C-alpha cells in the first residue's frame, strides 16, 4: 500500500514540478497558436478542408507531445541524476521501481494535460472550419472517433515516454539516452511498414532472408503506427471500440514491460 502511495506522491510532485516549468507553457502556448493557425492553413486548400483541419490539429498535438517527451521529460529525468536530486527521493524508503513509475506517471499526467489543452484548441479551430465549410465535412466524420484518435495520440506518447525512461535507465549520458529514444520513436513509426514490406515481398532487397529478424524486431520495438489514427479521424473512417480497447491494452502492457526492465537496469547504475 505504501508502495502505491509513494508512486502517487512522486507522480504528483513530478506533475507539479513540470506544470510550473516555463518550458512547458512556452511549448503549449506555441502549439495552441499553431492549432489556431489551422484556420489560415485550411484556407490554402480548396477541397477536403475538413480533413486538412482535423489532421493539422492532431499533428500539432503529436508534434508538441514529442517535444514534451524528449525535451521536458528527459530533462527532468536527467536533472534528477546530474544534479543529484534523485538522492532526495532515494534516501527515503522508496525503491527504484517506485521512483521510475512515479516519475513516468507524473510526466504522463503532464502529457495528458497538454493533450487536453491542445486537443481543445484544435477542436475549436476544427469546429469553426467544419461549420464554415459544411460541404467539405467528410460524410462519416465523428467527434467520437476524433476523441479516440486524440486518446491514441496520448497513448503513443506514453509508449515513447516509457521507451525514453528505459533509455535513460541504461545510457551513460542523457544525450545518448535522448538519441536512443528518438531512434526508438523513428523505428516504431516505421515498424509496420518494414514488417509489411518483408512479409509481402520476401525478396525485398537488403532485407531478403531477414524476415525472422524483422518479425523479432517488430515485437521488440513499439509499433507506433497502430496508434496513428489521424487518417481515420480526418476522413471519418471506421474505428471500432474493440480496436481502441486493444490499443489501450497494448500501450499499457508494453509500457509496463519497459518500466519493469528500466527498474532492473537502473538498479545496476552507480549513483555516484
Amino acid at each position: 500500500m505504501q508502495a502505491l502511495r509513494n508512486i502517487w506522491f512522486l507522480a504528483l510532485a513530478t506533475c507539479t514540478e513540470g506544470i510550473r516549468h516555463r518550458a512547458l507553457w512556452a511549448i503549449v502556448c506555441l502549439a495552441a497558436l499553431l492549432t489556431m493557425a489551422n484556420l489560415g492553413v485550411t484556407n490554402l486548400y480548396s477541397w477536403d478542408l475538413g480533413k486538412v483541419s482535423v489532421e493539422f490539429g492532431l499533428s500539432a498535438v503529436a508534434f508538441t507531445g514529442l517535444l514534451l517527451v524528449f525535451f521536458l521529460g528527459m530533462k527532468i529525468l536527467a536533472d534528477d541524476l546530474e544534479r543529484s536530486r534523485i538522492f532526495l527521493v532515494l534516501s527515503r524508503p522508496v525503491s527504484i521501481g517506485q521512483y521510475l513509475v512515479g516519475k513516468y506517471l507524473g510526466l504522463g499526467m503532464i502529457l495528458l494535460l497538454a493533450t487536453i489543452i491542445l486537443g481543445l484548441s484544435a477542436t475549436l479551430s476544427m469546429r469553426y472550419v467544419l461549420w464554415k465549410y459544411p460541404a467539405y465535412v467528410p460524410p462519416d466524420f465523428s467527434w467520437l472517433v476524433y476523441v479516440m484518435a486524440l486518446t491514441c495520440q496520448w497513448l503513443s506518447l506514453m509508449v515513447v515516454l516509457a521507451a525514453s525512461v528505459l533509455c535513460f535507465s541504461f545510457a551513460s549520458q542523457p544525450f545518448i539516452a535522448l538519441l536512443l529514444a528518438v531512434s526508438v520513436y523513428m523505428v516504431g513509426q516505421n515498424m509496420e511498414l518494414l514488417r509489411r514490406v518483408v512479409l509481402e515481398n520476401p525478396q525485398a532487397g537488403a532485407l531478403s532472408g531477414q524476415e525472422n529478424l524483422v518479425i523479432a524486431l517488430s515485437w521488440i520495438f513499439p509499433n507506433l503506427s497502430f496508434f496513428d489514427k489521424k487518417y481515420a479521424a480526418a476522413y471519418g473512417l471506421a474505428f471500432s471500440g474493440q480496436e481502441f480497447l486493444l490499443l489501450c491494452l497494448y500501450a499499457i502492457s508494453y509500457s509496463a514491460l519497459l518500466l519493469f526492465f528500466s527498474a532492473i537496469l537502473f538498479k545496476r547504475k552507480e549513483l555516484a
Partner: protein
Amino acid sequence: MTHPAIQITNLDKSFGAGFKKYRALTELSLSIDQGEVFGFLGPNGAGKSTTIKLLLNFLKPDSGSLMVMGHAVGQEEFRQRIGYLSEFPFFYEHLTARETLLLSGRLSGMDRRSIDQRIPMLLARMNLAEATDRRVGGFSKGMKQRLGMANALIHDPEVVIFDEPMSGLDPVGRHQIKRLIAELKQEGKTIFFSSHILSDIEALCDRIGVIHKGVLLYSGGLGEFLAEGNGLEDRFVKLIEEADHASAA
C-alpha cells in the same frame, strides 16, 4: 545489548575497469554507537562521500558489509530510520519549501497530520519560516542547506548522516548548523557527518575517523587523537603525510 547505529566491515569499493580502475575504498571498517556524534574527516577525494553513498545504498560495494541500526544495507529496509543531507542539496526548483517537506514526509510513511505539525516547527527552527511557501529555486545556498537539514529531520530519524554540512556556508550559517548538531546530540540522535573543516570536528565530535585515499588511518576518540599534544590540524596533517610516505615507499 544495543547494536551499533552504523557498522561498516571490510568495505572495498573500486570505480572503472582495467587500466582505469580506481580503488576508492580499501578494507574500511568502523563502528558508530547510538547517540554518538562521529566526525569523518579527510582531504578532498579521500572517500568520505563514497562511504556515505555506500551506506545509503546509492552505490554497491565490491565486498564487505554495511549495517544501519542492525539492518543490512541493500537487503533490508532501513531508510525510514535515517535522515540524509547531501553535500550539495538539490531540490525540485519549482516546489515550495512546504511541498518539498511534504513530499519527503509522505515518502517516509508519515501521516498528513504529523507532517503538517512538523513542517512549521522545523522551518522555524531553521529560520525558514518566512520562506515556507516560496519556491526553492529562489533560495540562497544557505537557505537550501537549511532546508536540506529540515528535509533530513522531517520524519524524526534516529540516525542522521550529513555530508559536508557546513560547505559553502557563511560564518552565521555554520554557527546555526553547529548549534543544530549539538541540539540533535542532546536529543539522543546518532550523527555521522563528514567534513574537512577541522575546527567544526573539534567542537562537535565524540569520536572521529580519518580517511585518506580510501584507507582508514584512524578511528577512535577525539581525545586520544589529540593526546600527543598537538592541535587537531597538526595531528591530522602529520597523519596524512605519514600515510603518503608509507605508500610512496
